[in-house]
């Protein structure tokens, strides 16, 4: 991690004013290959001694999601009432130097969408109760796609800060938004926003694109591949 230190020190030298805040992400592009098992992203930067606290939010591309409630009908569990969230972030991680509730009042947290309880998740069905919203967050947390690390941001010498964000293997591809907030006296004093992209590359990306753009050809190719492997396999093993 020597390079990180060097970068951070050079950043410190560049901080101009009292409320300045600079930030960067370790990778601007994360490649999802066939052997992808998740990735670690480091968001780091430098600030002055004021603002004292840092909140960092990472948001994945918004996507529609349906939450269904399991209900029992005649002894069998079926999917009952549902709520559709049209723009739930595909990934969300928030980290801070201190617990979020201590740092910012609820109105501010809602305004910037900071904290799992302050995410702007709106269901299409107005009647949908809050339980659907909570279930959505809970299920995403369980899959490692939503996370709140209240004390995840480490600060070195009042000036350098960094946080490690783990992106699980199921992260959706797309453009990711990173917002870095400088917080002082229960107010957001400075904001920096960055972006990075998660892209499917290599064979798996080619296969996905082919399957979605030429579904007929893909189906035929799957049939031929299965036929060749099945036939070749039987020959290999008959001799062996």
């Amino acid at each position, binding site marked *: 991690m020597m390079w990180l230190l060097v970068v951070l020190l050079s950043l410190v030298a560049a901080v101009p004013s009292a409320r300045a805040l600079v930030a960067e992400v370790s990778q601007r592009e994360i490649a999802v290959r066939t052997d992808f098992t998740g990735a670690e992203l480091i968001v780091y930067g430098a600030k002055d001694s004021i603002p004292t606290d840092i909140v960092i939010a990472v948001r994945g591309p918004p996507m529609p999601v349906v939450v269904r409630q399991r209900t029992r009908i005649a002894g069998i569990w079926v999917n009952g009432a549902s709520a559709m969230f049209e723009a739930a972030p595909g990934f969300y991680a928030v980290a801070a130097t201190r617990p979020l509730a201590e740092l910012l009042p609820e109105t501010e947290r809602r305004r910037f969408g900071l904290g799992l309880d302050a995410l702007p998740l709106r269901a299409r069905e107005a009647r949908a109760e809050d339980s659907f919203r909570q279930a959505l967050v809970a299920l995403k947390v369980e899959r490692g796609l939503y996370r709140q690390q209240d004390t995840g941001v480490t600060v070195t010498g009042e000036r350098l800060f960094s946080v490690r964000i783990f992106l699980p293997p199921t992260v959706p591809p797309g453009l990711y938004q990173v917002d870095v907030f400088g917080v002082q006296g229960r107010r957001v004093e400075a904001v920096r926003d960055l972006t990075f992209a998660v892209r499917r590359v290599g064979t798996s990306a080619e296969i996905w694109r082919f399957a979605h753009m030429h579904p007929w050809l893909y189906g035929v190719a799957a049939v031929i591949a*299965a036929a060749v492997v099945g036939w070749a396999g039987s020959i290999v093993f008959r001799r062996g």
Partner: protein
Amino acid sequence: MQIYLPIAEMSVDGLVIVGIGLAVGLLSGLFGIGGGFLMTPLLIFIGLPAAVAVATSANQTMGASISGLLAHWRRGNVDSRMGTVLTLAGLAGSALGVQAFALVRRAGQLDLVVAVFYVIVLGIVGALMAAESLRAWLRRRRKIPRRLHEHFWMHGLPVKMRFRKSRLYISVVPPVAIGFGIGFLSAIMGVGGGFILVPAMIYLLGMPTGVVIGTSLFQVVFVTAAVTVLQSVSTQSVDIVLSLLLMVGAVAGAQFGAAMGSRLRGEETRGLLGLLVLSVAVGLGYTLVRTPDAPFVLEPLR
């Protein structure tokens, strides 16, 4: 060894997948079946989406059945006329099945429908198989001779057709109905349907046992091929990487299974297969009535 599945959009342990292929291949070689009805529940069990499990399992079953079909074809054990009738009806059934599959998926009830189909179909077939093998075992002890084949009322329906190789002159209505039904189940359950087709051919159509396996493989290969293409087009849920990994295991397993199977007697094999089918039905039935781990489920919208 983690491998990212491009269509399922998740990482899985490649060795676990090959292992599943091996285990299912072993049983399919032992019992002379495609094994799709074991494959789909196992894939769902390790966390794959039901849509991917069903569609990929059909693709895999096709690959696993093709070598068997070639072997039977070379030995002349395929009634291609009967096979064609079953296949054409099967294609119509699978086209309808894929539509139903997409509809149910949009309604968010896919997991339920797949499980219910498995419980009902496997429950009935498993019970019939177990009962039949018990009867055959008793018959052998009492030495009651069996007739070549019995004429059902349904054989006398209109549009008669001669199936030379099967030595039958019957109405095309029963084979069309059977083929259609199997095609439909193939699309919904991701199975080849050999475990239903074989007894249906013997007991409902009265085909001679010598051509039954080959002819059923004929239908299975073509219908699962059609299901693969149709699922690719309508749901984009055939995962070719998953399918190839499964096949690597299945092809190897089937050879060992076939070697083991030659040491068992017919009714013993069928009895064991019946028990296996029944236990899958009971296992899946339990998941329907068991209180779920989470009171809510999440699914992406496509």
